């Protein structure tokens, strides 16, 4: 029990120290975020659509799937709830909904959920209708405020910088999407976006110094190399089949869209590698300005060994987890895993492979660029 006690003591003392130093700041941030979430929880008047707060939901079994013998059950729901906004505010509404036991294409609603609904008064004055969707903004708000709070409490200034760069990046993406909607080419826009993302993110991560310059330059060069490599493989094989790309209904120019996707998707990982390498080499040069280029290459290699495995793992899990529901749906429809991976999943795999190739290319390129830019200006430390 002794080590447990000591561990608890240490954790407690850390908490105590943190609390004392930043209590006011933490409380202030917490107060702002809590009030923000509270507003989102009660923002019924922001919406034109009718919102119903469910009080009672009765499920009745209507059907069992007979064909496949998998035991899927179908239910219909009779929902009673209070209307929260609009002309009928405060009155009772009676809604209907259908769902299946797997919730694959539909949802089962429970008491306490708030849903959007289409409502009509029938001749008896009873308000009836059906559910169109769940009100999810409060969960978005909870998650976003949790993220912001953790960033500010634990990482402080850097966390704040990250939030600012995130907001600027998302705003520029929104503007680009608006321009694209008005007819501008998506690939041209993505190229501009990549430039903006790189400058903004690296500015807020490193500040303005030669480290940031080296990282920016090597990120962009690596991105160009990766794209050239991708185009070469594309030209030398039978190309990509875009049938299984997701969200393509009614979109033209799929090759350009896919190119933009992998451009933006690989950017983050390449930037990560470039920053890590550039700051490691920068430290070395600052500590020992006389260090030779050969030693720098050797150390850059060592750092590269350490980061490449975990970086490739991040890409793997971040990309493949999104495909889970579709893979399971296909497996259950008797399509073999081999077929799915080799011919129906390639979009995720292409993104993952190109991202990984970008990570690997970034290691030597950043070492090279860092040595070029930093050794020259060694007189002027950042």
């Amino acid at each position, binding site marked *: 029990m002794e080590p447990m006690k000591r561990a608890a003591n240490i954790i407690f003392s850390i908490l105590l120290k943190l609390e004392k130093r930043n209590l006011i700041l933490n409380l202030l941030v917490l107060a702002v975020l809590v009030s923000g979430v509270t507003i989102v929880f009660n923002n019924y008047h922001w919406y034109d659509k009718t919102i119903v707060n469910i009080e009672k939901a009765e499920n009745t079994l209507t059907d069992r799937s007979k064909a496949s013998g998998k035991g899927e059950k179908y239910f219909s729901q009779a929902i009673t709830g209070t209307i929260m906004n609009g002309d009928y505010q405060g009155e009772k509404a009676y809604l209907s909904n259908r769902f299946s036991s797997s919730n694959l294409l539909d949802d089962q609603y429970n008491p306490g959920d708030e849903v959007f609904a289409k409502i009509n008064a029938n001749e008896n004055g009873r308000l009836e209708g059906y559910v169109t969707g769940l009100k999810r903004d409060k969960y978005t708000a909870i998650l976003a405020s949790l993220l912001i709070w953790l960033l500010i409490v*634990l990482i402080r200034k850097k966390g704040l910088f990250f939030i600012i760069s995130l907001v600027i990046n998302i705003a520029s993406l929104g503007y680009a999407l608006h321009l694209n909607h008005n007819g501008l080419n998506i690939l041209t826009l993505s190229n501009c976006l990549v430039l903006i993302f790189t400058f903004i993110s690296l500015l807020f991560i490193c500040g303005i110094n030669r480290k940031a310059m080296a990282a920016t330059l090597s990120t962009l060069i690596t991105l160009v190399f990766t794209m050239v490599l991708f185009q070469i493989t594309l030209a030398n094989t039978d190309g990509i089949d875009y049938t299984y790309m997701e969200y393509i209904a009614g979109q033209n120019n799929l090759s350009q869209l896919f190119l933009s996707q992998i451009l933006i998707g690989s950017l983050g990982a390449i930037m990560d590698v470039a920053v890590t390498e550039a700051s490691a080499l920068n430290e070395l040069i600052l500590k020992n300005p006389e260090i030779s280029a050969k030693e720098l290459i050797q150390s850059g290699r060592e750092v590269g060994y350490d980061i490449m495995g975990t970086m490739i793992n991040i890409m*793997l899990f971040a990309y493949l987890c999104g495909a889970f529901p579709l893979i399971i*749906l296909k497996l259950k429809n008797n399509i073999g895993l081999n077929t799915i991976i080799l011919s129906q999943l390639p979009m995720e795999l292409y993104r993952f492979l190109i991202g990984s190739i970008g990570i690997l290319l970034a290691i030597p390129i950043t070492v090279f660029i860092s040595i070029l830019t930093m050794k020259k200006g060694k007189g002027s430390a950042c």
Partner: protein
Amino acid sequence: MLKLLVLILVILLYAIGRERGIVTFVSLCFNIAALSASIIMMSWGWDPVAVTIMSCFVICYVTLFYQNGKNSKTFSSFFSVAAVLLILFAISCFIGYRSHSGGINEIMQLEDEITRYAPDINIDMSKIAVSMILTGLIGAAMDASIAVASAVYEVYKNNRNLSIMELYQSGISIGGDILGTTMNTLYFACLGESLSLFILLKNYQYSVLDMINSKAFFQEFTDVTISCIGCILVIPLTAISIAYVIKNLSQFERFLPDEELLLELDEQIEKEENK
């Protein structure tokens, strides 16, 4: 096309990483195999959440201990990633069930591809949503955790007089440096993946409020946000656990066969005995 890209990746791995590149490739193959195995088990009707937690632990165990050996760094990383997985399991269960974020979203349902398949699968999609979130998280959590652990370890090696509190502080400050770029990796990967979704939402005339309430956006948003929260949480946990472990090495002796500091300790004791 796929084969050529894999070939290029393997060649690059070998050219840049040599033996370490091959180790990376082997553990990558293992991770893909583990993911496929867990998906197959889910499709057999096993409980998706239980399967995912199991496979996450196996993946963490293999990635950490096979790639980096059994020492104080990997031991404390494994402990903190496991703790983060359990914490976020609670959060994602709450969010996943309350917000009905499982299943095929309303935008995806409009695609031709979905209509080709029978929806009678009898697997609870809310649970699949939880396992998606947990799987997406472990790569980034392991990365942040290993980086903090090895940095604190280096600090301690260069200055043995630091207290647990000081080691924890240096862990946090190093963690802040790497966190920004790791989170960039995550959210750019997510932005790239969902670029076509955003274009489509714009084409369907969704307003910002409509978008926030749609399942399609919410799925992407929860995935990336919970991964980021995991990355942040893992940093103090790793910092405190590695500081505690290297300050009390003798208690953890039997877990750490490859620990360099323990060997040093043994040598010191031997020297003293010889004197």
